[in-house]
């Protein structure tokens, strides 16, 4: 979907903005700054050409055609891949800890700053990892959804 066109409601824009600025769309005014650009976005893509495509994709989904199914499946796949990625990270870090403790009992006798290493790993480190993964997941999942709705809006 990275066709370099201005993206819709996502102000987070992940580096697409420069591209959008460079694209010499006739409707884009030279005014720099956020508000003016937003206004252009609302009016400019609302050409008849864009609208025709929008109608077709959303109604493809509504009619449950093969094409509509492909769109929904692509959204599901991207979200599922993301979720499985999180699961994989958890499984290969936290999930392998019991095995590591089993195979290398010496880990249990290591002290870090006066605290036994397993205690440190199973409290502060584990919770920090869980929160970080959750935060990354929310960001990515929202981006996937934004991509999907941009796709349906034909941008």
């Amino acid at each position, binding site marked *: 979907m990275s066709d370099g066109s201005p993206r819709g409601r996502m102000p987070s824009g992940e580096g697409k903005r420069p591209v959008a600025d460079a694209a010499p769309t006739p409707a884009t005014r030279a005014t720099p700054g956020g508000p003016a650009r937003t206004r252009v976005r609302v009016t400019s893509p609302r050409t008849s050409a864009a609208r025709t495509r929008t109608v077709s994709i959303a109604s493809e*989904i509504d009619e449950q055609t093969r094409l509509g199914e492909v769109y929904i499946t692509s959204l599901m796949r991207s979200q599922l891949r993301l979720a499985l990625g999180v699961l994989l990270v958890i499984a290969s870090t936290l999930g392998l800890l019991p095995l590591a403790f089993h195979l290398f009992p010496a880990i*249990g006798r290591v002290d870090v700053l006066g605290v036994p290493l397993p205690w440190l790993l199973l409290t502060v480190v584990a919770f920090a990892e*869980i929160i970080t993964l959750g935060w990354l997941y929310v960001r990515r999942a929202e981006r996937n959804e934004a991509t999907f709705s941009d796709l349906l809006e034909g941008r």
Partner: protein
Amino acid sequence: MSNTASIVAVILVSITSLAVGAFGLRLSRTMSDFYVASRGVSPVLNASAISGEYLSAASFLGVAGLILARGVDMLWLPIGWTAGYLLLLVFVAAPLRRSGAYTLPDFAQLRLESVVARRVSSLLVVAIGLLYLIPQFQGAGLTLRTLTGAPSWAGQLVVALVVCLNVLPGGMRSVTLVQAFHYWLKLFALLTPLFFLLGALGSRSGGPDVGAVFASDWVEPLGGENALYLTYSLVLATFFGTMGLPHVVVRFYTNPDGRASRRTTLAVLVILSGFYLLPVAYGALGRWFASDLVAAGRADSVVLELPSRVFDGPLAEGLTALLAAGAFAAFLSTSTGLVVSVAGVLSQDLVRWGGGHRQGIRAFRVSTVIVVAVSLGLTFVAVGVPVARAVELTFAVAASTFCPMLLLGIWWRGLTAVGAIAGLVVGGGLSMGAVLSTTFGHGSDGWFGVVMTQPAAVSVPLSFATMVLVSLATRSRTPEHVSQTMVRLHAPEHIDLNRGSFHPERWNRRPARTDTSSVRVPEQAEAPEEREPDHPGTGPSAARERPAYGSVGPTARRPGTTVRRS
């Protein structure tokens, strides 16, 4: 020691909870619907309510007790209970909110389009809820016994009574405010004494007997027989069990949309992580100051006894009272949430009589009393399983039943009703058998006995496998509207799409998309207009009335978005 302060604290918490509940009732009478109103609630406040309900007696007392008794291996409990929410976040949170389902049976009905699947889910919700209520009541009895010397049944009865008083008048609506209040109370109650205890530890150089405190089997992981299997089974149960708990799922409805439910869950992760460091600290401090409790078999009461071990006089009394208040808040919030969700399911699916709204309220109230009475009875006959252990087993049941149903139902079009039911029966039967044999004291020896004490590592994969294989065998019977359901579960709300017409209130007459007149006729007797202004509705049946439309209709569209397809 004198315990007047503690008793006063417990009474205060009970009264405050009832008062906040009554306030919530008043408040929601002026609003058309509690859930619509709560849509303006920020993710953080919503997350405190969720955490308030989730942090039960097991978290408040049990974790510290188990860490005191068994050391580092028990750190997996708080981690699992938090990571469970991470998996809930990545696999379930947004789709479940978007489904518009209010309970797990609702979800089964929506996705599998089968009334039998709904009934089986309802039975399981009731079973899990009752099993989870037992340790809550146990904890309450234990707390009052520790504080006052009163017999265990007294405390159990008190909690049961307060829960009934809280639930009977207002149902779901009056509960949410109480939950958020309880979370902050619990946090404060654990945090304040901890500061004092740590201060005392700092001033008292050189503990009693360092060798006994940091015995190697306590500090180093995987002590005891079959530790590797038991640990992995525990990890599996807690990581995957959270998403299958009935009172957890209900809470997701208070989010405005799927996106907000993700953000709320993220806030829950932060809140839980912060909270769970506290019981761990109590367990470790208990090893220092109160290690004799293990031998006495009263490890669960370590949190409550610590202040009086270290301090004396009014300071000890005050801190104990604070902890008692927190513990009581923990029993109240979790058991209230459980009773509400179980009674809701019970009254809707299993004890139906009459079609009208007033009968609905009556059924809900009768169900509430039934649920409380039955779980109280079960608590009396259950042998003394440690509080956190009993909760662990409940998680195993949830992980081997609803977790596969949710995961496969949301992410795999191929799941059929027959497959789901088979998996629920296999996973539920296995794990329930294990739980009952442990809870009611019929342990067995050998490898089989080990599996029975910690069934998840066997029952969870088996349940998944059953669902997949049976679904593949009955491939011709995939639910008719599954494509539409997938659109509903996964497409962001602001996109204007057809998401089907499922509504939890009308589950037994799900109409096809096109025909309306023929199906609508019989339901007019109990149609929503019956409960418009003069009885604004009581109980969960009323609470779930309007929002279920919200996720389907144009109201789900966010205001900032342009409307396509004009």
